[in-house]
């Protein structure tokens, strides 16, 4: 089943830890790549900034650029007040980005192609928004659902729409990332599978395999773009939602 495009998403237990209070908490390949992702992010950021160079080296520049990139993103969306969430947004961005990029290696498991992972991260974002919003503004946080300057008659309708849009946020946030990674990897696998099955058909097959091969190469480039873009989109939307928690009135 090497050609099965779904096989890459199979979760295998590496260290079975079954039945912890009725839950299966086994250390799987997904867990392994979460650990690898976190280790890579922490290790890279930690080691490249160890010198604390006044004039940064190449590697330190990368860390600083990532920092500045997320910092300016958050500052633009949520203002200086939003900077208290910076470690959170930076962690999210780096985690999603590196998990996506690791997914581009053959035989690596893509952590973000699992709906439960992206959904947990989205719920984390929305949960933070709701908890912080109520902590900071109390009941005034509900003003988020009542835009200014709406005629009294329309208020119930608008509030309904706003509530639905708010509730759909974690779903759209998680499904966007999950679906992009999943679809990209399946497409890549399908086209790569064409190459192997066509070359098995002899000389004509090898000639015919050129097209899917070119397609695979192009898609790989596209997937790298998508890996970065989805991490960026995830972080930008997080910043915007956090802005709602900080400034609930429209």
């Amino acid at each position, binding site marked *: 089943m090497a050609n099965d495009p*779904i096989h890459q998403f*199979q979760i295998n237990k590496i260290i079975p830890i079954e039945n912890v209070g009725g839950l299966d908490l086994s250390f799987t390949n*997904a*867990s392994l790549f979460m650990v690898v992702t976190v280790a890579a992010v922490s290790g890279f950021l930690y080691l490249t*900034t160890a010198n604390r160079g006044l004039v940064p080296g190449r590697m330190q520049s990368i860390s600083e650029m990532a920092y500045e990139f997320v910092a300016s993103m958050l500052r633009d969306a949520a203002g200086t007040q939003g900077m208290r969430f910076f*470690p959170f947004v*930076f962690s999210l961005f780096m985690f999603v980005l590196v998990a996506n990029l690791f997914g581009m290696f053959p035989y690596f498991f893509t952590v973000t192609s699992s709906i*439960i992972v992206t959904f947990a991260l989205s*719920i984390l974002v929305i*949960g933070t928004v709701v908890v912080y919003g109520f902590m900071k503004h109390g009941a005034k946080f509900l003003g988020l659902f009542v835009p200014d300057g709406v005629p009294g008659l329309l208020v119930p309708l608008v509030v309904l729409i706003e509530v639905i849009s708010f509730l759909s946020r974690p779903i759209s946030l998680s499904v966007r990332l999950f679906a992009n990674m999943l679809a990209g990897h399946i497409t890549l696998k399908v086209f790569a599978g064409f190459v192997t099955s066509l070359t098995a058909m002899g000389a004509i097959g090898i000639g015919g395999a050129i097209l899917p091969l070119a397609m695979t190469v192009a898609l790989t480039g596209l997937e790298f773009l998508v890996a970065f873009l989805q991490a960026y989109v995830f972080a930008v939307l997080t910043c915007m939602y956090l802005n709602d928690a900080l400034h609930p009135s429209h």
Partner: protein
Amino acid sequence: MFVTQAIAEEAAHGAAETAHAAADAHGGGAFPPFDSSTFASQLFWLALTFAFLYWFMSKVIVPRIGGILETRQDRIAQDLDKAHELKAEADEAIAAYEQELAQAKASANEIGNKARDTAKAAAEAERHKVEAKLAEQLAEAETRIASIRDQAMADVGSIANETTQAIVDRLIGAQVSEAEVQNALGGANG
């Protein structure tokens, strides 16, 4: 804190999601991303790893990189301040130099003028002196010439007397006294 929050909320939402997922998963063996039997393990390890990442970021990485950037910003601002200071100093020095130069030029002019004036005055004085001396010498020479001429004139008279005496002696052989000659010639000389 946020992570545990997420898991709690997740439990509720997750169930609904799974029901949909299972229905969509082509009937047969569950589509791995929607296989709810792996959810607990994934959530547990995600919570663990992401909590660590968040902790490490907020405790180590963010303060460190923030510190590096701040130090650099401070250093740049400091250097800029210093550059401004040095520039102001340089401007001041240039202004002082120009002032000094203008002063020096003015004093040089003054010295030049003074020197010219004194030289002119000295030359004038010298000229006056020389002129006075020349005038004096001229006057002296004139008086000497006059006295010499008077002398010569006087000598001419006595020569005429003597000559007359000698002529008279030769012509008439008579000794004439000088006084007589003088008398006789008085009219002619006069």
